């Protein structure tokens, strides 16, 4: 027995060593294959291979070595870091269910994500950020088999008028934005407390009343894009099928009246004496007359 033991151990060690070597080789091979992926933003071409060092330095802590969002800091964070292996992204200029464009990811890396722990990475060079976009893509094979969606077309922003704000309010009512965001945009609609993300974690709707910037940008065009394409992975759906491009601007202007900062739209709403529509009022009329008050 005694003589056999070392043999067995040696054998086990050999097997383990063989396994670890072979699995490491497979992983290395796959990773190498994926590391050839590129990202294109403007005239820049990003190479995943060139981002490995920056990713390890700046991103791994939260997003993890494997890009699965399980970095060592992840347990302390809410919202959780994105799991890149799933290739589901909130901030897209493309239809729901499709991959974002490289520009979309580049914007996110540069902008950071408001009310999360994702900071702006604009201090890195443009080239370094495009490389990181390619690196983010290398974590999922979806980028090999599928093309990015087509970005939606956003018409030029029209002038804000009282009529547009009123039409926007009617849309807010008809599309039932208030079911989650609340009639005054205070994130207190009847469904607000029950929302979960795609990993079944609780998630809050955007509170227009006390937040100025959105996760996916802060400009009017960003706001337009957010509700038209939806935020995949969250309860926020795409409204593209049911809102015409011009109408969408009406909704943008109305939403701006709900926010804390001073905007031209808010000034007009004040002059109009615009009040939130009571969703429980009798059948919504086709015109957007403010009906009664709502607490």
């Amino acid at each position, binding site marked *: 027995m005694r003589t056999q033991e070392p043999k067995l151990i040696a054998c086990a060690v050999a097997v383990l060593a063989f396994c670890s070597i072979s699995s490491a080789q497979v992983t290395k091979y796959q990773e190498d294959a994926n590391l050839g992926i590129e990202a294109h933003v403007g005239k820049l071409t990003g190479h995943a291979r060139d981002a490995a060092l920056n990713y390890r330095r700046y991103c791994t802590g939260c997003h993890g070595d494997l890009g699965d969002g399980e970095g060592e800091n992840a347990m302390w964070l809410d919202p959780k870091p994105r799991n890149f292996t799933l290739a589901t992204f909130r901030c897209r200029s493309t239809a729901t269910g499709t991959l974002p464009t490289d520009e979309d990811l580049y914007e996110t890396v540069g902008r950071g994500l408001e009310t999360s722990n994702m900071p702006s990475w604009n201090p890195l060079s443009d080239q370094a950020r495009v490389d990181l976009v390619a690196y983010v893509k290398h974590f999922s094979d979806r980028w090999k088999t599928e093309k990015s969606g087509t970005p939606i077309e956003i018409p030029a922003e029209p002038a804000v008028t009282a009529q547009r704000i009123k039409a926007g309010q009617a849309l807010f009512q*008809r*599309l039932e934005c208030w079911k989650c965001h609340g009639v005054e945009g205070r994130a207190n609609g009847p469904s607000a407390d*029950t929302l979960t993300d*795609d990993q079944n974690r609780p998630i809050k709707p955007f509170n227009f009343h006390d937040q100025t910037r959105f996760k996916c940008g802060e400009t009017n065009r960003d706001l337009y894009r957010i509700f038209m394409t*939806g935020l*995949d992975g969250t309860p926020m*759906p*795409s*409204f593209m099928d*049911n809102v015409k491009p011009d109408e969408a601007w009406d909704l943008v202007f109305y939403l701006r009246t709900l926010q804390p900062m001073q905007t031209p739209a808010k000034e007009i709403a004040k002059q109009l004496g615009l009040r939130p529509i009571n969703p429980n009022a009798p059948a919504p009329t086709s015109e957007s007359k403010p009906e009664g008050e709502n607490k």
Partner: protein
Amino acid sequence: MIPATLLSLGIFAVKYSVHAAPPSGSSITGTIKLEGTPPHQRPIDMSKEPACAAVHKASPVTTETVVAGADGGLKNVVVYISEGLSGSAATEVAPETPSWDQKGCQYIPHVMALNPNQHFKVTNSDPTSHNIHPMPQPGGPNHEWNKSQPSGAQPIDAAWQSPEVAIHVKCNIHPWMSGYMVVVKGPYGVSDEKGSFKIDNVPPGSYTLTAWQESLGTQTQKITVAAGKPTAANFTFKAK
């Protein structure tokens, strides 16, 4: 939009070429039974959506995780051929375009079976908005999407590209709404309130037949289908 149109045109082309082949084969019929006491189905409180609460005033609705009749017949079980299909039988796309309706803040049907690339229509019969949010396995071959569908909106046309058992569908506005789309290759059947199902156009051969129920899991059995003769196959699920 343009790629989507091209895609659907492509699918139509496939559909018609498949359609040209005459349907052949036998049918598999059977009954799905539930053994034991059906689990309690929780009543659904729709008071947050008065329009839907009003619809169900007379007969309140419950969850539908297990729907069993008085005689034990189990509804909403998808029966399909999980092994043994070959050639066109495995790739044929059913020509129907089934509807997935949102009515009274419930999904009708609660469970729908589909082939990969078989188109379906999502409709909203309610006076209220829904968001239709199918949630395939994250990172899998099908991808989550999430669209708002206000009252009176046009139907949404969609299809799943890969088999998946099963895709959970939910509405975030009405968290009680729950349904499943089951995407399988080849012919399929879904059991009715008596637990009966029928699968048509099965070519003769030996197969593994699988029955899937949303909370009781799957069961399989081997069957042999002879030419021109209906084959019987029954399943019994045990209540957990």
